[in-house]
């Protein structure tokens, strides 16, 4: 057991640190020029799509180097390495694995260069976490598919240029998961309508997307017709170690510590209240557990062992921490903690109040805690299925 990295990996870490030192100004001085500049520079380094094969423009970075890059960037609070988040997370890997040479040539560079942003059209009304029951229809007509139907909870749809879409092309497949096809669709295609959904925090990250006789060239089909399921699953299965997330959680913990050190409550400093200290320590222990869980799973990957559902463990920790840390911050300061941005007594300019309403996907999205519990109980502990997943 050791936490040392190989000389090669250490050298890479030094390279990343040097780059950050040279190119990352303090947060205050980061204007839009800086960002464009930054994106170009990290692109030149091939740190965007770092894990992707060289031939498509990646760097074929090792798992250890990926972890190092993530960790250093997170530690430096660096801006993202690319702005096409879904493109980098889901679409790129999918195209690399299943795409035609033309599709790779056409789509990958724009993702790496942050020129085109993507969203993912999986969920549908009434079929939240049940992807296999997709109803949106795709009918082949000559060299096009004509798409009709509706998607929902499509994150990023309000500003996305393209969408990776699952449609049903066969309503009577022999195998349950067959008959679904994966299409790459230009959001500007006639018949695509986006209706943003406002969440309880007043934001509009996600949307309903309606498709009415939308014509999609067959050339934009990803993978074989009827095999869209496997395309998606392998994309979703594209699990990475949670090193980056953990670093962010530790940062959040630090801001929380700063808050309790500067909050007077019940006549004394919150940081001196033993129940407050206990709560913060509980957060720290959980986050530390996520860190060392993550390192154990990373080690498995490094040894070439497949990651089973263990990643659900950290997902469950994150889901509870994401809700509890903000809620705790809000609860510390009574009504002041509930004042929004411009409130006279607002705490942290309302950021905690806002965050306490802005739950990430890990809490509310597909893989909610109850689903993670089932995954662990059934796939790891081997308990019988109850049909709820």
């Amino acid at each position: 057991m050791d936490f040392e990295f190989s000389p090669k990996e250490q050298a890479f870490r030094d390279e990343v640190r040097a780059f950050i030192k040279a190119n990352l100004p303090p947060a205050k001085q980061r204007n839009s020029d800086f960002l464009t500049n930054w994106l170009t520079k990290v692109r030149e380094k091939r740190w965007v799509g770092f894990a992707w094969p060289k031939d498509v423009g990646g760097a074929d970075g090792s798992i250890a180097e990926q972890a190092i890059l993530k960790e250093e960037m997170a530690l430096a609070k660096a801006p993202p390495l690319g702005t096409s988040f879904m493109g980098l997370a889901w679409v790129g890997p999918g195209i690399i694995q299943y795409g035609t040479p033309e599709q790779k040539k056409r789509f990958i560079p724009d993702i790496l260069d942050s020129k085109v942003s993507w969203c993912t059209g999986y969920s549908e009304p009434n079929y939240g976490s049940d992807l296999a029951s997709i109803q949106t229809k795709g009918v082949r007509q000559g060299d096009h598919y004509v798409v009709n139907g509706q998607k929902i909870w499509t994150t990023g749809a309000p500003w996305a240029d393209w969408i990776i879409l699952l449609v049903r092309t066969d309503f009577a497949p022999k195998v349950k998961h067959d008959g679904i096809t994966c299409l790459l669709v230009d959001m500007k295609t006639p018949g695509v309508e986006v209706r943003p959904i406002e969440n309880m925090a007043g934001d509009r990250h996600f949307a309903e997307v309606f498709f009415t006789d939308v014509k999609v060239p067959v050339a934009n089909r990803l993978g074989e017709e009827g095999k869209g399921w496997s395309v998606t699953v392998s994309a979703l299965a594209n699990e990475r170690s949670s090193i980056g997330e953990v670093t962010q959680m530790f940062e959040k913990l630090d801001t929380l510590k700063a808050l309790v050190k500067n909050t007077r409550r019940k006549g004394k400093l919150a940081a001196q209240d033993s129940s407050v200290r206990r709560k913060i320590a509980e957060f720290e222990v959980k986050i530390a557990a996520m860190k060392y869980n993550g390192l154990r799973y990373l080690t498995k990957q490094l040894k070439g062992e497949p990651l089973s559902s263990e990643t659900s463990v950290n997902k469950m920790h994150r889901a509870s921490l994401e809700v509890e840390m903000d809620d705790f911050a809000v609860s510390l300061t009574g009504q002041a903690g509930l004042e929004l941005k411009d409130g006279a007594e607002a705490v942290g300019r309302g950021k905690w109040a806002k965050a306490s309403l802005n739950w990430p996907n890990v809490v509310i999205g597909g893989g909610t805690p109850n689903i993670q519990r089932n995954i662990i109980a059934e796939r790891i502990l081997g308990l019988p299925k109850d049909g709820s997943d």
Partner: protein
Amino acid sequence: MNFGFTEEQELLRDQVRRFMQDACPLTEVRKLMKSATGTSPSLWRQATELGWLGLIIPEGFGGIGLKWVDLTVVLEETGRGLCPLPIISQTLAAAALLRCGSDAQKQKLLPTLADGSRVGTLALYDEPNWVHPDAVKLTLEGSRLKGTKPFVADAGAADLFIVACRTSDELKLAIVDRNTSGVSVAVQPMMDETKRIGTLTLDVALADAQLMPLTTDDLAYLSDCGAVAVTAESVGAAEAALAITTAYAKDRIQFGSPIGKYQGVKHRLAEMFVDIESFKSLSYYAAWTVDDAPAELPRAASLAKAYASDAFARIGIDGVQLHGAIGFTAEYDIQLFLKRSKWARPMFGDSDHHYERVAALGGL
């Protein structure tokens, strides 16, 4: 021995329910959330005519002369519908006058609260999460009250502010009219838009008639009344959150059955029921002590608020979570109850405050 409600009280409950269904459904509440004052003159008039504003005000002062147990019935039902009318503030203003006011002050002001011509509110503490005499900071120098009073409930609608302040050696309640020069009100943007708070900026000279003595016992009494009122609203609101989530769990089909069939969902709903039943019982007991066993009020109020604060907050969060993504949207009502639960949690003492008080009153 009768730890239940009388027929009259059940009739009152039906009356409030009908009012909420007909005049103040959640669609109406959502409109008021966006309005300037956060409340509605016509609803206010109806509430007045139904006698709810003067419920605990003796008949001699133009009220109905009922008890806090009756008020609990009203607040439980208005809370169930997230009614934004400032009935709690109106009542606490009246309670302050009844407890601390001179006969002249009562004669002058209580009738205007009972008939709804004034909208009153009570502002006790300058610190956001501290229920303690030292948390009253605003100072009265001679007859001059100068400074700000933050966290004033229903500040948007109120025009009669009863404000706690301190002189060099004692606490006072100041009666401040919104429409006097030197008084300005800034309503603050809040998570729960059905509960407006505001900051009062004051620079006024007060006549003796505008001042009431305030002992630390009075302060504790008024805070306990506030805790009782907030808990009563929370009972109704939590029951509504449970009802909405239960209905969703019955309707929402996933993987071939209603999600309410799975113990992961149904057991959590059962636990919500257990909690609500429990702080409901404690809330009734606390309300009863206000008029019938004042010596038991401090402990009773703390028992109820300690349980309700955290349980309702948990119910608000889990209610949204059990809905999945849909519960998270502004369009769906369940999230309004989450926001209400976050508002109610610290009001007149959070669970840390009340549990510690239970321990102390329990001899630890």
